[in-house]
């Protein structure tokens, strides 16, 4: 009999990650497989329903907000900025975030250099800082073309770079993750760290856009 999804499935903290109700739609083969695999893992004592619910909850809590706070800190604290560039994982730990065993490399945009990240081989992404990756990051068009024609791809995101700007494309591997430190926007000298974090978008930390301007328009 149809009823509402169990409480544990509510994406109560999904500020940036939405959900689709697939509770009453016919199961596909792969959805049926997911149920079977999950129940087998529970029966074998490898996980529990509660552990799965907790993993989903922690996924829903994850958002680009942690990455944005890290960048804002780097903008206002030059010592931290240099530490982030020298050893991203250590800077994350110092900031109270868990690098989860992965090496983080931060690359910094300057007036003359623009950085952008990709994973041509799969979809490696700093999800512990940015949340789950957007669909386009995982798909062929971005993975194939960014390394060959980055300016064209960036223009498709609405980012037109001057010809004299050097574009650096960074290709991730399974053992490390990149994050872009976008340029701090003009007109932000009086802003607090929290206000600055509000200007740092997911896409600006991937490098397909700039940080938002303080006048309020968002991507």
């Amino acid at each position, binding site marked *: 009999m149809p009823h509402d999804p169990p409480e544990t499935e509510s994406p109560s903290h999904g500020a940036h990650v939405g959900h689709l109700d697939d509770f*009453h739609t016919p199961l596909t083969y792969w959805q*049926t497989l997911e149920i079977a695999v999950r129940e087998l893992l529970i029966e074998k004592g490898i*996980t529990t329903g509660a552990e799965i619910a907790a993993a989903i909850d922690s996924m829903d809590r994850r958002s680009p907000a942690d990455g944005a706070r890290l960048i804002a800190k780097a903008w206002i604290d030059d010592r931290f900025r240099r530490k982030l560039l020298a050893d991203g994982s250590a800077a994350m730990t110092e900031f109270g975030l868990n690098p989860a065993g992965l090496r983080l490399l931060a690359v910094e945009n300057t007036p003359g250099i623009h950085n952008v990240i990709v994973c041509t081989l799969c979809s490696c992404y700093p999800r512990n800082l940015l949340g789950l990756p*957007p669909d386009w990051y*995982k798909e*062929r068009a971005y993975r*194939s073309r960014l390394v060959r024609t980055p300016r064209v791809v960036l223009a498709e995101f609405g980012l037109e770079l001057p010809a004299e700007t050097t574009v650096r494309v960074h290709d991730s591997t399974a053992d490390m993750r990149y994050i872009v430190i976008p340029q701090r926007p003009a007109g932000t000298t009086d802003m607090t760290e929290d206000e600055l974090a509000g200007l740092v978008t997911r896409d600006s930390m991937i490098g397909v856009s700039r940080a938002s301007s303080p006048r309020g328009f968002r991507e």
Partner: protein
Amino acid sequence: MSEFVGRQWHDMGGQDAGPVVNEDHDFAFWEKRVDALMVIASGTGRFSVDQLRRVLEDMGESAFETMSYYERWIAAINRVLIESGIYTTEELARKLSDVRARGTTYGDCCQSETG
């Protein structure tokens, strides 16, 4: 283009492709559950990221073109769990028919479940 001869399909950096579709989708509950299974199964050390990559890459280009991201993931998780001896194909077949016998929607199959 000759420079791509001999590359595996997933090694797609530098090839031609259509424009980037700058869109996102909301995650379905089942996709989140697949993601959770990946995180949990990887965290137990039952399989390595390299094992998972091999399985995903061996699925071939047709899987990449026809299956969604999380469809490929659950297929890969299932494969490595069987390879690692966590359960057998017979146990999986039995479980799949159990699940199907319970109903055709998640609500019917799993209404007493959490997860």
